């Protein structure tokens, strides 16, 4: 089951990126969550045929990846494993929407192709910003930020518990799956029946684990709170980060920078 092991390692690598110690990592998570949310909203608020105006938004993930010292190729590779659903749905646009909307010299470009590439660009931007948020902040900090921004406490605890045990249980599941694969020659034995028993066993062990955790919690006086090593406050840096990026991104949303630079470059000033 190399794929499961690979997925777990990949998961951990992304998780470990949050231990970086750049100025962006030290920023309070709320600032990063708010700006990322604004970014996603502004990107998806573009018209479906808008392509060039989306390009300037690349600056946000690129700047964060660079300043946050994140491995660029790794994140780019993860982004390029785009959600297959997007491509499957998006590829119908060129087939259905064939009205010519744009002439570039001898090339006529249909609305469908424009909107298809617009969907791809949106996907890269939104997925990229989600990865950078996680890699700069870390999952527990994102949870705490969401809780401070109003997410209900039980759900925050649920997220932290889930995060705590994902590493344990994916490995347990990976071991079980590998054992099943080693015992089944090729496809035989990989069917639904053995899967049901395998998952049933995993479920029973999980349930027993939860009971042990509960006893451990009780004996140590769990007060519904998770403690973390890195405490951050919402200060001047956070304010500057939020205001700076918000103004810049809003400006990009309402001034088509591509169009502007292009016309300056081609000497056709408006």
């Amino acid at each position, binding site marked *: 089951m190399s794929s499961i092991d690979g997925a777990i390692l990949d998961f951990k*690598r992304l998780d470990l990126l949050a231990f970086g110690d*750049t100025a962006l990592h030290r920023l309070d998570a709320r600032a990063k969550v708010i700006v990322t949310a604004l970014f996603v909203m502004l990107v998806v608020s573009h018209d479906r045929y808008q392509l*060039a105006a989306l390009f300037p938004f690349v600056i946000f993930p690129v700047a964060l990846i660079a300043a946050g010292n994140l491995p660029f190729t790794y994140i780019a590779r993860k982004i390029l494993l785009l959600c297959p659903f997007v491509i499957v749905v998006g590829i119908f646009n060129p087939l259905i929407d064939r*009205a010519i909307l744009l002439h570039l010299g001898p090339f006529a470009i249909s*609305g469908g192709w424009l909107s298809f590439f617009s969907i791809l660009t949106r996907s890269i931007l*939104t997925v990229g910003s989600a990865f950078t948020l996680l890699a700069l902040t870390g999952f527990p900090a994102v949870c705490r930020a969401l809780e401070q921004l109003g997410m209900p406490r039980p759900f925050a605890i649920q997220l932290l518990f889930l*995060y705590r045990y994902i590493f344990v249980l994916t490995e347990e599941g990976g071991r079980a799956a590998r054992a099943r694969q080693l015992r089944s020659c090729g496809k035989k034995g990989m069917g639904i029946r053995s899967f049901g028993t395998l998952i049933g066993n995993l479920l*029973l062990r999980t349930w027993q684990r939860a009971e042990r955790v509960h006893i451990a919690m009780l004996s140590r006086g769990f007060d519904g709170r998770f403690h973390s090593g890195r405490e951050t406050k919402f200060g001047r840096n956070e304010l500057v980060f939020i205001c700076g990026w918000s103004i810049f991104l809003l400006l990009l949303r309402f001034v088509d920078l591509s169009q502007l630079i292009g016309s300056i470059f081609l000497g056709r000033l408006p």
Partner: protein
Amino acid sequence: MHMADALLSPAVGGAMLAAAAGSIAYCSAKVRKEVDDRKVPLMGVLGAFLFAAQMINFTIPATGSSGHLGGGLLLTILLGPYAAFLTIASVLVVQALFFADGGLLALGCNIINLGIFPAFIAYPFIYRPIAGLNPSTARTVAASLAAGVAGLQLGAFAVVLETTLSGISALPFTAFVSMMQPIHLGIGIVEGIVTALIVGFVHKARPDIFTNNDHSSASIMKSIIPGFLALALITGGFVSWFASQQPDGLEWSINKVTGKEELAGSKDGIHGALSGIQEKLAFLPDYNFKKPEVKNRGEQEPQANDGKKGGNRLGTSLSGIVGALITLGLAVLVGLILRKRQEKAAMKPHAHEHAHPHGHGHEHPHRHGDQIHSHEHFHEHSHPHPHVHDHSAPHPEDPNPRHSHEVRVAEHSHDHPDHEHESHEHKH
């Protein structure tokens, strides 16, 4: 069938996100009221279980392809609707962040599609009535099959609705529906069979697990569904009035299907029928579509009036493309400059572990053993790259002065039994 940011408009995405947030708040309050604090760790660990189970594939008989568990129905059978909904939502949050399955805005859609339908519709209205309180094997199979199929059909239909209402994809409603529903019929049948197998297995081993999840469907009907609908409608209206810059996708796609002669052509009859159904289904007739010209008034105007229809809504022309390439180049340049500065800062003594930005993080889990890794990590005490530290003095900015000691301890404790790790979280 994860929904994706790239296919969503802000109005649809925002409305679904608000609906999901409202449902989470409601279920959180419900779960908090249940005094049973055994459920707190149970939900967390079962969420992790679901996550792990989704990674394991099985071959689907007679097709040769492989599938995996969805698990929404299974969790609801085990935990009851409220706790199960929170658990499913939490798994989706992790997937949205770590795998970018869909994205952050689409999270609301995914939570509704994959959480609400199995937990609050398929389980109380289909599974419970068929299975009853003490189900036989046949009843479990029938109930799981019916509920699995229903949950996935509703979820798939919701994906179609969300996509069509957003209007980013040009797929017409009926074509999309006729593509999605049959696929998800198959997936639903498999999901139902697998769920029945697991439930049957667990029922034999631990019948006590299934005892106290009694939530009558009536109370759910009364409590959550009207609130959920109202919330979705109110926020949908509000968001589209407030934030919508490109609200005309649906109108456009209808025009595309009905108005364009070159498209209609030979398939006139089909398209006519499609658009008829589509207009009937467009249930927000006085949704206030702005004219596209309005938005680019201002500095874009002189560019846009080069005679081409739609030129201004595109903002895409030769200068746009040249400009896009230049901005892309600028973005890369800014990135390179920032990275250089970052590396220069990293050369300073107090942060020298960052001198090699790539690779270390990757080696870390192998080195210390994975159990240890997840434990350290949870507390955020240990240093990210301990093996680069060749001095034992604590990091000047590290909040935990003991971290170098922690690292040494971690290296020697490869084979702690499982439960010892579990208990760590309460120590600090």
